[in-house]
């Protein structure tokens, strides 16, 4: 169970010892470690699904009992996120082997450290430990975002670092407020103590939780804390940006986990604290991301705005509440993350053959209504080169996934979301559900328009471009990601059932609490603060 954290740690340490110059050895080590992680994640997922209450295991670091020591917890949701992370890591890593890992030092060790941080953030059951893992993943992501250097990257990276540092300070303030009120940092212990908080302390606790929430939502990219995101993601090296698609989902995951655990229906007076804000913010994020998609003039930025749409959808779906909705949201989360990662990788291949600024010209030309003078009489009869055909096909698949059209998994995800939104009680559909439905469908349409426009300009219109040379090692991960989405579509029944079970156990966290706290019978409050 500790393996998802320990394996990348050791791998990265070994790479540092080996030195950044031995690229082949580092790359081999990296691939081996990531493949091992995929295996571990699959094993954990199967065991979590097989266990009756969905809670696989609680690992006590240093064997200290739960409220005092730090625990790692695996349940269905965690196992799913671990698997998603490792698959994404494998795809982006293989892609980067073609070219990108060579443009700067220490790519492989940073990559492993990032993996370690992400896995740790998914696994941990302790708030402060969560902070530490967040910092690990952020520090590694700073390095990776700057990988390859260049003016745009450094400027965007600096904004990214500053925003995230401020968010980390908010995180610390929130954590210490919560600790000051409840005297514990263990998530399960917190959940049991929150209903019993005295009324005069409740405001302080909720302030702490709200500040903590702001820190996570900044990382999840909720409007209005998301302005740093499109620029950084568009400027980051493509394989890194593709892996960053999971970073916003880390924020979403923490919100999902903490909010349902601490402020679920069992939380007494604090139940559903901040839910409406989350709902409104999520919807505003979808709208902002959609407008950004329509307005963006190059494809990397378009993809970055789609990341916003995706996390906004998940956030508002979580806040809407019904359990079926959360199951759908998890399905959507997986499918959109895979689709977005594939798109980030694909964009780089498509962009490779064209001169910088071509997108800009294309869209501006459309605005000013100038005739396209590029008719090439010789070019019309030539068959489309195979690589363009593959790229185009992959691009269409990605567009279908992120805009949510049949036959791929994006459609099933949105369908599950909307069905759950409209069927809480057959008689009364809440107004929020209608608004959600309209926003979701409109954003799907707008994303489709934006991707189609970008695709037409990139793949059809420019006949004067050089055919991009695509290597197998680059296109294979993209196709693999798309095939995974297709598999998710074909296996939609079992996958949705799994997500539903994960959502159920989130809403009834008793097994989680029991598993963490009763791992050993510890008399509580032996060290509790005297007040």
């Amino acid at each position, binding site marked *: 169970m500790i393996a998802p954290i320990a394996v990348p740690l050791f791998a990265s340490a070994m790479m540092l010892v080996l030195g950044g110059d031995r690229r082949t050895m580092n790359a081999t080590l990296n691939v081996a470690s990531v493949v091992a992680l995929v295996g571990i994640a699959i094993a954990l997922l199967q065991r979590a699904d097989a266990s009756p209450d969905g809670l696989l295991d609680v690992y006590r670091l240093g064997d200290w009992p739960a409220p005092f020591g730090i625990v790692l917890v695996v349940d269905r949701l965690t196992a799913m996120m671990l698997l998603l992370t490792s698959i994404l890591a494998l795809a982006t890593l293989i892609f980067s082997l073609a070219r990108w890992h060579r443009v700067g030092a220490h790519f492989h060790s940073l990559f492993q450290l990032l993996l370690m941080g992400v896995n740790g953030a998914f696994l941990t059951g302790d708030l402060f430990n969560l902070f530490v893992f967040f910092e690990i993943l952020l520090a590694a992501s700073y390095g990776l975002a700057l990988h390859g250097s260049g003016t745009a990257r450094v400027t965007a990276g600096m904004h990214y670092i*500053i925003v995230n540092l*401020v968010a980390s300070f908010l995180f610390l303030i929130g954590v210490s407020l919560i*600790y000051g009120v409840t005297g514990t940092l263990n998530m399960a212990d917190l959940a049991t103590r929150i209903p019993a908080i005295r009324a005069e302390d409740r405001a302080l606790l909720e302030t702490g939780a709200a500040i903590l929430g702001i820190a996570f939502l900044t990382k999840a990219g909720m409007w209005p804390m998301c302005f740093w995101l499109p620029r950084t993601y568009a400027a980051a090296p493509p394989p890194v940006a593709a892996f960053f698609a999971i970073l916003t989902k880390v924020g979403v995951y923490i919100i999902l986990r903490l909010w349902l655990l601490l402020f679920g229906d069992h939380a007494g007076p604090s139940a559903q604290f901040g839910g409406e804000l989350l709902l409104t913010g999520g919807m505003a994020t979808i709208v902002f991301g959609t407008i950004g998609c329509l307005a963006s003039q190059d494809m990397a930025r378009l993809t970055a705005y789609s990341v916003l749409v995706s996390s906004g959808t998940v956030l508002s779906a979580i806040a809407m509440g019904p359990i079926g909705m959360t199951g759908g949201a998890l399905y959507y989360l997986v499918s959109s993350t895979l689709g977005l990662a594939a798109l980030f990788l694909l964009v780089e291949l498509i962009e490779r053959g064209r001169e910088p600024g071509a997108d800009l010209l294309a869209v501006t030309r459309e605005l000013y209504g100038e005739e396209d003078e590029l008719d090439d009489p010789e070019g019309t009869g030539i068959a489309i080169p195979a690589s363009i055909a593959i790229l185009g096909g992959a691009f269409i698949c990605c567009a279908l996934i992120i805009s949510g059209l049949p036959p791929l998994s994006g459609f099933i995800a949105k369908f599950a979301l909307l069905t759950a939104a409209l069927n809480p009680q057959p008689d009364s559909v809440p107004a929020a559900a209608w608004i959600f439905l309209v926003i979701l469908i409109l954003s799907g349409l707008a994303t489709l328009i934006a991707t189609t426009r970008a695709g037409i300009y990139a793949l059809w219109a420019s006949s004067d471009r050089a055919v991009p040379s695509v290597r197998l090692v680059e296109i294979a991960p993209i196709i693999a990601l798309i095939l995974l989405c297709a598999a998710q579509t074909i296996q939609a029944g079992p996958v949705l059932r799994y997500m539903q079970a994960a959502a159920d156990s989130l809403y009834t966290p008793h097994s989680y609490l029991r598993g963490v706290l009763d791992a050993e019978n510890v008399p509580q409050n032996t060290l509790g603060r005297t007040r």
Partner: protein
Amino acid sequence: MEIVLAIGIGVLVSSGVWLIFRPRTFQVVVGLSLLSYAVNLFIIAMGRLKTEAAPILAAGGGGDPGRYADPLPQALVLTAIVISFATTALLLVVLIASRGLTGTDHVDGRELDR
């Protein structure tokens, strides 16, 4: 003692926030450092202020936990100090790289048009 600490944290936070909104990268870095000091003090304060109380239980007897200072915030603050120190150092490197690449110390990488 509480009021002194509260005023200290308040002054640090307000100066830090003001500096973060300045356009020069170095001002932002100093602002972030001030903020991190404020946050560290805040964490200590959340463990309740106590003087002359040891965080470590005396050998041989636990006794009244009220006589001891809370050790957990002190451990947290150590971690937070190390992490914020490291990230500030990293930010300084990026600052210098940005200064070298763009030729200006403006956070946007270019001066505003006058």
